[in-house]
């Protein structure tokens, strides 16, 4: 009668085994990349009803973010400007800048009818996440850290994953993103722009003992009793240019930045 199963079946287990291994690998890698905000969110760049260019306004004209997003420092929500705001410059009778431009058609219409402009939402936290702008911009975290260089974007795009893991990453080591408050909305800010002397002077003016500052720079035991000493010490440790680490560590220590890692910080 012979064999019931054909000869080739003998190799089947091996083949199947190998196949399974590879598929499993592929799937997990695929999921790890395509199913996470890194991919699902970053790069989202919808076209807006009004072709408003942050590049022109925030970049070329150098308008401060807070001129339009006026409540970022006061409230959890950083508001989208009212039509009125646009009109302060573009409305007839007011600035009247390019009032006639077809690009502003919708804005004009909105002004007459009172119909809001349906801006397309780019950054969207889930409903159970209570993100608060004021808590960040008042404490040395710049807009750029989460929204990227908007001043270079013709159309706003989603720049960062803004996943929970991503948030926690910064909440664990905030020094990576801290900067002096007067640079919060300066999207082009580089630590190297800071004058080291001014920076430390600022701290000293805030009655921070120079000893503490020195210890943050040079670790335990490091000493420096006046500004120059501090600057020298810093130069020795960080080199000519002011570095983010230098700024971040100082501010973290002396502003007592302690980002919460509790559930309640974002979920209520």
């Amino acid at each position, binding site marked *: 009668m012979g064999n019931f199963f054909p000869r080739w079946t003998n190799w089947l287990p091996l083949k199947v085994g190998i196949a399974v291994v590879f598929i499993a690998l592929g799937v997990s890698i695929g999921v790890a990349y395509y199913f996470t905000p890194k991919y699902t969110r970053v790069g989202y760049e919808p076209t807006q009803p009004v072709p408003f260019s942050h590049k022109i306004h925030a970049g070329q004209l150098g308008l401060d973010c807070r001129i339009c997003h006026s409540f970022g420092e006061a409230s959890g929500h950083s*508001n989208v400007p009212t039509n009125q705001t646009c009109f302060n410059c573009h409305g007839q009778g007011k600035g009247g800048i390019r009032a006639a431009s077809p690009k502003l058609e919708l804005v004009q219409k909105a002004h007459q009818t009172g119909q809001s402009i349906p801006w397309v939402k780019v950054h969207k936290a889930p409903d159970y996440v209570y993100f608060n702008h004021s808590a960040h911009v*008042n404490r040395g975290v710049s807009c750029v850290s989460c929204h990227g260089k908007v001043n270079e974007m013709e159309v706003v795009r989603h720049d960062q994953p803004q996943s929970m893991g991503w948030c926690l990453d910064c909440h664990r080591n905030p020094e990576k993103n801290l900067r002096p408050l007067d640079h919060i909305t300066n999207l082009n800010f580089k630590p190297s722009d800071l004058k080291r002397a001014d920076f430390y002077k600022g701290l000293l003016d805030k009655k921070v003992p120079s000893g503490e500052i020195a210890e943050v720079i040079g670790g335990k035991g490091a000493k420096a009793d006046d500004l120059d000493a501090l600057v020298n010490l810093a130069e020795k440790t960080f080199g000519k240019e002011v570095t983010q680490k230098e700024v971040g560590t100082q501010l973290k220590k002396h502003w007592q930045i302690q980002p*919460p890692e509790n559930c309640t910080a974002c979920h*209520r």
Partner: protein
Amino acid sequence: MKRNWIHPEEPQNAKRYWRSTAELERRESFLKNLGREFPAGDTLTPEEAENGRRDFLKIMGASVGLMGLASCRRPITTILPYTQHVEWMVPGKPVLFATTMPRCGGATPLVVTVHEGRPTHLSGNPLHPLGGGIDSFAQASVLDLYDPDRSQKPLGAGKAISWAKANELIAAAAADAKKSSGAGLGIVVGATTSPTYLRLLGEIKTAFPQAKLYGYEAVGGDAQAVNKEVLGAGVKPFVKFSKAMRILALDCDFLGVDPVAGEPIKEFTKHRAKETKAAENDMNRLYVLENRYTLTGGMADHRKAIPAALIPAAAALIAEQLGDASGKALAASAPQALKDWIAPAVRDLIDNKGTAVVLAGSRCSAEVHALVASINNALGAYGSAIDLLQEAPKPDMGDFAALQADVSGGQLKTLVSLTPASLFYDAPDAAAFAKLITEKGVKLVHVGSLLNSTALHAAVHIPAAHYLEAWGDVRAADGSYSIVQPMIAPLYDGASENDVLLALLGRKKLGPAEKPADGAAPAEDAGYTAVRDTFAQVAGGLDESKWNFTLRDGFLKGSAYARANASVNAAAAGTIVSKAKAGASPSDEAIEVVLVPSSGVYDGRYINNAWLQEAPDPITKLTWENAAWVGSATFKRLGLEDGQHIAIRANGVEIEIPAIEAPGHVSNSITIPLGYGQNNVGTVGGEKGVNGYVMRRLPGQFVISGAKVEVLGTVAELAITQTQNTMEGRAVYREGTLETFNKDTEFAQKTGMDSHIPENISFYKGQVGKKDTENPDGFDYETKHQWGMSIDLSKCIGCTACIVACQSENNIPVVGKNQVRKGRLMQWIRMDRYFAVAKTGINNVAQESTWAEDNPTPEQLENAEMVHQPLACQQCEAAPCETVCPVNATVHTDDGLNAMAYNRCIGTRYCANNCPYTARRFNWFDYNKRNPLVETEKLGIKANNLYFGPLGEKREDESIRLQRNPNVTVRMRGVMEKCTYCVQRLESAKILQKQVQRDSKNFRVPTDSVKTACQQSCPADAIVFGDLADAKSSVNIAKASPRNYQVLKYIGTRPRTSYLARLRNPNKNMPGAENIAVWSNNQY
């Protein structure tokens, strides 16, 4: 789910109080967003309107597999900002306004939290002289605003009519009243203190000289009338609890549903809490005589249950002992026991002349009020512990008897009912009265916010505006003048009483005002003008800044009533007393029936408020309905079980009502809470409970004697939230007498097992206690806040204000009668109520509230002690619930909170099992999504809507959603929830501090600046909350008290919430004084 609320048109011709130019100019965008949960488009988007928070959680789960497949991009969601900026509006930040809630004969000063145009939460106004905590009625009144069953359209003989028609009818009525110079026009008003209201009534009198005014409140008593005769016209006694050290209350629930004009309760409770050894006289003492347990009775140092019929006798006895013999006849009927009880009590009052007061309940009969007046006079209370204030003169009004007479006499053609009471429901012999009205062809114009029987049978019904919707003003008990300012444009064009009067005077058109001609500025609202005019009178000239300050502070400084120079007219009192007949104490055959306002719906006006309906009655723990309270002894004699129907026959009527056992209730007496049994008032209030009003025949008749009771076979399943009435000897609640306290101030910390807790020897040092060198893993008190709470049981009176406040602040769903029966109440705070008798030390009420264990005497049953304990999540430092959660949904925060991440919870319910305090609540159904209040019939099965799941009907009352607090997640089915110390408030406070801190180090929020909702609402100041790491914080001071103890300390959960044991101040000479509070010492 957030929905767009279709917002009504607004009066155009009238001058409008506008929140924004957008509203002023009626911008589409504004109107569109007006009802949105987040009108500041930033946060509410059409897509979100599709996927609410809870839906999102679901979708998260469902779509996890699909994530990224849909081209890895999210659907387009849009942001709709305002076109014009809105004044005061910072998107995402609530605005607080001061206003005042007009109450029967008074006012409650409030601060309203308004989220983008939606009033969401109420709290007391701390600036106001009578401000502070507020009771559950005021707390819950915000829900009435959004009640979907509110009357929304004018009705003509029960059918919807247009506003135009309504205006016509009113104009017509006014016109022909004018012809006869007012003859035939009658107006019924409630007990109001609104100057504008009264002023307009006055103007009505001038415009229609022959018109008649009547005052009617469903549960109002004769007090006013008596005061007029005995003390003089417009003289109003104002009790100063801060001065009263000895109080004897005659059936007067001044801590509960029968408030007296006087200082807020917290002034009374101040004198209850002692932290160091104190003399008897440093602590106030409360004597209570009543037929049933009330909150006041629960707080009493000495309480005796006596039939309500004997209250006059008791008053007479007291008066007699104070040398006023006018009541001798009455006193004769008093039993010996009562005499023995009263004698020492009065002696104590006399010993404290000047600081002693006797209070009579508002529903007590005239002679009691008369006697009490002379008693207080004899005690020298007037001028010391009681101020006599001179009210502003009121137009004189007839009482209900007069109204009845005039109607039957045919003098009335048109009757305008402005009273919050419902004539055809709560009037004495309402049916007959209704019949009379129709027979005599009286045109009844009814103004009210409920579609109750009066509204449906009135010739014309006008929807009333909620006090958060319309302009008005009111005087508080002490006379302070407050303005009632609207928070939101009327949702249903309702009209306030003032508006109706103005309409009668032809100064206002009711309902939506027609649009003004283009360009024409909208005319000013007459209601608004009227209030401004009154203000001008009160404040002496219309000074804008004064006006604005009044609006901001919520009251006009220095506007309180002046002292009256009045004295007690003994003769007048004597005559009143002499008219009275002695009441006979009831017997097995002739049982007495006592009608009382209910803690849930007061006199019936709150019948459609789900929060109040579900807030358990403090005494019986009954929700959603009323039942006949029967004293335990009688209960046993009749062989009843809870919920068994009884038929009560009295005054020639018979009602069938389920009975409920009420320990501490006097025998042969039955108490019926009023206000229930109103049909077709809406999904919430409809068909709930039994109407007790039918029993009374005369306005003042709240005690009906000689009733016959028949036990029926049927048993109703009552929605009781607590089946266990005793503490089973567990030292959960602790109290002691002042004497015990003076002997050992720390007695509470040594009660039961707490005295011998073995040292906890652990292999590791966990995150407990304060971090220091010994305890490196402890909580960081240096750079973090450490939240904690202390609840003073000496102060807690057991009202349910905190429960309702919590419900309003934390978006806690209402679950409905069906679910309460199943024991699935969602309220985060549980108000445990325990009974105890001193017989065996450990109280001996067995579970299921029968007294089976041993048979105490009826006397003991009547005088069982009652205590209340509010119990929410204790925020244990070593929380047993945390370690058992498999998914880390509940973990500990470094500021000592027991965090609950709803969006992580999968609902294993293990935490609920492992919580020693049973403080966790589970969403058994989608209470927010499926209407739990209605029955549904599907597939031939009729059952509660919840049980049909996806087939069931969605919640229609979307207006309710406007009340939701946007800072709190609305929980979906299948997740666990619990008290979080109002974490949303804590976080906002911390973030607010960050805005101040900026580049400095002072991270700590200002001392005591953040309050939890329950703390804010507590009228007794029993709850203290704050930062333990802040040495100055009052919670630290409270926890330093020797009375401080932790519930179930033995198991080592280290709760952050601790309690202060209750102190009582018994009078040694009183019978049974030796038994008081001893039960607590025998606990384990």
